[in-house]
């Protein structure tokens, strides 16, 4: 148990710095953003306490906000997704249920399941993020374009990371 907490802590820091040092500078065509830190939040173990999930989401969001100068926006979006995550996990339970201490990843439940699990959550996260940033719906079309392209971009990077490190974080 202790070991897994340490590993979670380390990967928290790795994801945070991956986001603010590298992916912050890689915006495609001015409209596709990659917020890979959502990958960390989605890959927390299935049995994590929902309160913990929200606090971890809040912490991660707030750190990202400090680097992006957008206080509260990433935190709000992350907390929202972390609240919805367990409901969605219960909805999309694979055949035979989740194993003890399972991580909702490709390695455990396959690519198709993971896409069904992760895509809507990433979409909701990005929608919350960009609409809060725009301060409402006055830039609706432009913001929606950003949400869709960013969802594709983020999902791609999250998938690549999982194929590169398939065994990681399955404790």
């Amino acid at each position, binding site marked *: 148990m202790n070991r897994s907490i340490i590993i979670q802590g380390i990967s928290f820091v790795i994801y945070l710095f991956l986001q603010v040092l590298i992916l912050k*500078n890689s915006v495609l065509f001015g409209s596709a953003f990659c917020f890979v830190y959502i990958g960390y939040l989605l890959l927390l173990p299935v049995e994590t306490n929902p309160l913990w999930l929200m606090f971890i989401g809040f912490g991660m969001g707030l750190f990202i906000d400090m680097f992006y100068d957008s206080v509260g926006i990433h935190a709000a979006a992350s907390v929202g997704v972390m609240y919805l995550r367990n409901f969605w996990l219960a909805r999309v339970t694979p055949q035979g249920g989740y194993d003890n201490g399972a991580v909702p990843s490709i390695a455990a439940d396959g690519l198709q399941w993971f896409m069904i699990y992760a895509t809507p959550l990433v979409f909701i996260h990005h929608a919350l993020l960009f609409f809060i940033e725009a301060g409402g719906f006055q830039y609706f079309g432009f913001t929606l374009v950003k949400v869709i392209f960013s969802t594709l971009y983020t999902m791609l990077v999250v998938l690549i990371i999982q194929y590169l490190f398939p065994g990681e974080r399955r404790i």
Partner: protein
Amino acid sequence: MGRIFLFIYQYRAFFTFLLLELFCTWLVILNNRYQGASFFNSANSFVASVNGFSQNTREYFSLRETNSMLAEENTALRKKLEQLNQLALKTDTLAGADSTVIKRFDFISAKVVNNSIDRLTNFITLNRGSEDGIKPGMAVISSAGVVGKIKITSEHFSVVTSVLNVDIMVSALMKRTGYFGTIQWDGHDPDYVKLKFIPLHVKPQVGDTIMTSGYSGVFPEGIMVGTIAKINPGRETSFHDLDVKLSQDFRKLSYATIIRSNLLNELDSLEMKVPNMQ
């Protein structure tokens, strides 16, 4: 009473969610409305040093361009200095002038630590802070043109609201015709901003120079903003819809100059008195 606690306990996830979201909303509103009220921004020294490391790495890719830009600016400044020297020799009018008017603006140079261009509200972090005399509201320019206004300062860093921010407006002047309007970004292309409130009877041309007007007192008069790139066919308003190409490429911004306006307080308090007298 016990049942209330039981109720809250049963729905503790939902209540925690609500509480955290309310806190986030409060942070967002605080950040939008007040200047310098928040700790969670990139003027925080740890965040700024990480961002500085990142910017240092990025800078290597634009060293050549920055160099040539600085050299060009040097020549231009030297030329101007020489002209002023000549003028002073000829007329010597400045001798009797009020020294506070001559020293109306102070210039402080700073290095860009963090910069963004892709969001609707973009900010820039500079490596000068309150210890160097920087205060919220000061103007920031670069060798090529306007950059923005100081939003928050910490001891050694400050955050600038970039011109590429849908919330910021800059009073601007068309050099050829003398008409003035307002510069505001529309959130789309980081190369272009909109020039608003130029009446239809003015005939702008592509290539016209747009400069700051100096009316707000924040920016000195005559700082380059850009040139008119496109005159959009007028919709049914009484103003032109003009696209202005910014003279400063914000992607390559690595040095900036902060302007301290020494007479800003005097100007503001004078203008404040006008509605009171009516």
